[in-house]
């Protein structure tokens, strides 16, 4: 065993420097050339940074497109999902409460049309996207809150819909923050 101890320790030190010092510093250096300089790409509005393009935010006001429920209230320093099992009675009560709240804020919407993502929490708690249907179902409420035409709002959603990658990977999504920034600029 002793004959292995010194080589093991020397191996550890050498590999440590190679994989944990040199390698990450090289990657960090290359990252400075990427958009955002490796720190994350931000979104700006009203002359200031209002968020990160990839990180979801809480939107609960009637005049904004609301984002998905989040088990961590969009705390971007503590990502997590709800981890509720599929038939957990407390969880189902929460979902029912979310449906009821949605119906109160969106009286013109039929319950059978509500997409499941609007009443279920995302895995990371920071999901920045919605499906185009989930955005369009909120158009009636926002049109009334802001005094804008529903057609104009639907068009806005379509302009901000990103299709599946190369047509076959994934499906269409809308980034809620960018959509709301564009919404604020509409007059």
């Amino acid at each position: 065993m002793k004959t292995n101890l010194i080589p093991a320790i020397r191996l550890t030190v050498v590999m440590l420097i190679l994989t944990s010092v040199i390698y990450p510093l090289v990657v960090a250096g290359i990252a400075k050339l990427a958009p955002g300089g490796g720190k994350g790409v931000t979104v700006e509005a009203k002359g200031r940074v209002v968020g990160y393009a990839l990180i979801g935010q809480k939107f609960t006001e009637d005049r904004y497109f609301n984002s998905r429920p989040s088990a961590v209230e969009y705390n971007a320093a503590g990502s997590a999902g709800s981890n509720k099992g599929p038939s957990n009675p407390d969880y189902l009560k929460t979902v029912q409460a979310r449906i009821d709240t949605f119906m109160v804020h969106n009286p013109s919407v039929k319950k059978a049309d509500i997409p499941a993502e609007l009443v279920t929490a995302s895995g990371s708690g920071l999901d920045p996207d919605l499906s185009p249907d989930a955005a369009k179902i909120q158009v009636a409420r926002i049109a009334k809150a802001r005094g804008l035409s529903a057609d104009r709002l639907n068009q806005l959603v379509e302009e901000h819909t990103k299709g599946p990658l190369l047509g076959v990977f994934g499906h269409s999504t809308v980034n809620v923050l960018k959509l709301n920034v564009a919404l604020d600029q509409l007059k």
Partner: protein
Amino acid sequence: MRSELIGLALLFGAAVGLSILVGRYLSRVFGCERSLFDWLAPAERVLFRLIGVDPGVSMRWPQYLGAVAVTSVVWLVLAVVLLMTQAQIPVWNQQNIPSMEWTLALNTAISFLTSTNLQHYSGETGATYFSQMVVLMFLQFVSAATSLTVGVALVRSLRSQTGNSPGNFYADLVRSITRVLLPLSLLVAIGLVFAGVPMTFAPYDSIKTLQGDLVSVARGPVAAMLPIKHLGSNGGGFFGANTAHPFENPGMATYCLHLITVFLLPMAFVCFVGYYLNRRKLGVIIFTLMTGCWLLLTIPIMQQEWAGNPAISALGIDQSAGSLEGKEMRFGTLASAFWCGVNIVIPAGALTSMHDSYTSLSGLFMLLGMQVDAFYGGVGTGFMYLFLYIIIAVFIGSLMIGRTPELLGKKVGQTDIQLATGVIVAQPLLYLGLTAVAALIVNQTPDDGAALGWLGNRPTGPDHYHGFTTMLYEYVSSVAGNGSGFEGLGDNTPFWNLTTALAMLLGRFIPIVGTLLIGASLYRKPFVPDSSGTLPTESYTFGALLFIVIVIIGALCFFPALAIGPIAEYLTGAT
């Protein structure tokens, strides 16, 4: 839906194509033939001189196992010490994260040492950038290199010569890193960086959102860690939400890149076996078996999730996009379920969605995939587990035709069969035993274990199917080296930290030691060419026999526990 399935099929095809290329490359590297990165040889000579090792010297088996053991102990001690003092280390520590308590530090260190990457802490709040890079990512590299190295040692012992050495552990370990893991990691990391994954040592940012809330945004040296997390079948994410976090996985481009890196080395290893032993047909048969079984497990999960959660459909809303609790919109239900299927047969155990929120039958297939742990499996170790099933299948098959059991020209003896059986049985014994202990404790605690704080999904009645499944999953995941978990479990408690640490340690080293001992014994035996009476192992009939053996062993070992866990949960619609 159809376009998504086409995309996933294309992704799988690309992974297979790349694996064949990498498999051939591995065969060159470990066969010491000319290969792509030979220009690194002078730098490697410097490394070998610094370590004080002569790569040309072959080790004998006991010395080899000793080297595995001693390096593991050194890494373990280093990791525990650094994690327990991480608050005091002045480098790369801007967030003032506290040091880990000793059971958590021990659990985390063992977890990353065994390539399991079970995380009872959450990256953003529990680990400094220093720990992520110097402890966790370092262990991801060296544990993956160890897995690859011992897998190669086993395959070397299946050659048709007679010999007594698996090679030089240190030389293979270093080459695993310099020729395989580092180049691939660097390539993938560059791709990730330009796709939007952060790579910075700057501290967390504080912003005011559009609606006016103040939010702290975690980031860090993420892009460096992710490639090795997937390549090495590790799975430990930078953030708590793992690959569901938008900074780890911004969209489908990174999803595809990540999934290919998960598939790559485990698949390539099977191709490596075929090329290195010059038995291409055996490689193809094994690859086909693994692919078929993986599909048998993944397709039901995708179907179950796409059908949605019946309890939510009963609330009267639109669930046409599948069950979305715990899933991310940019991937959707099908891609998330597909990723889940891949990450339970390959014990990377990374997550793009929360498994605790999957439907009950999905839980059944997840458990099955982890329990067998031989369909692709981990880099190197997957083939080792399949090798054990092959020994049993050869034994049973040969008895059926009245011949002495023989594998690739070497007689399989009594000790070999005993070792193989022992290792195969040891794993279910471990996780079933530990689950029984945990379940007993929950039952003995008043109010069905409320005071323990273990089970986040507590039913209103005494039936604990989902809770039982949660605890079973944690132990199966630990023994299998997977590392995913039902995160509704309150796992950062001394009981769970210490019991899963034991499970991970035994679950990793019993199979490694067991298979290497069998390999050593086979290698020493004289080579007997095939005769007309030999049970042919390079045939699809043997492949079918192997499949049946796996199913029978699986049914006997796993089904009783599965019956009182996910199956009961499904049949009663209860938690």
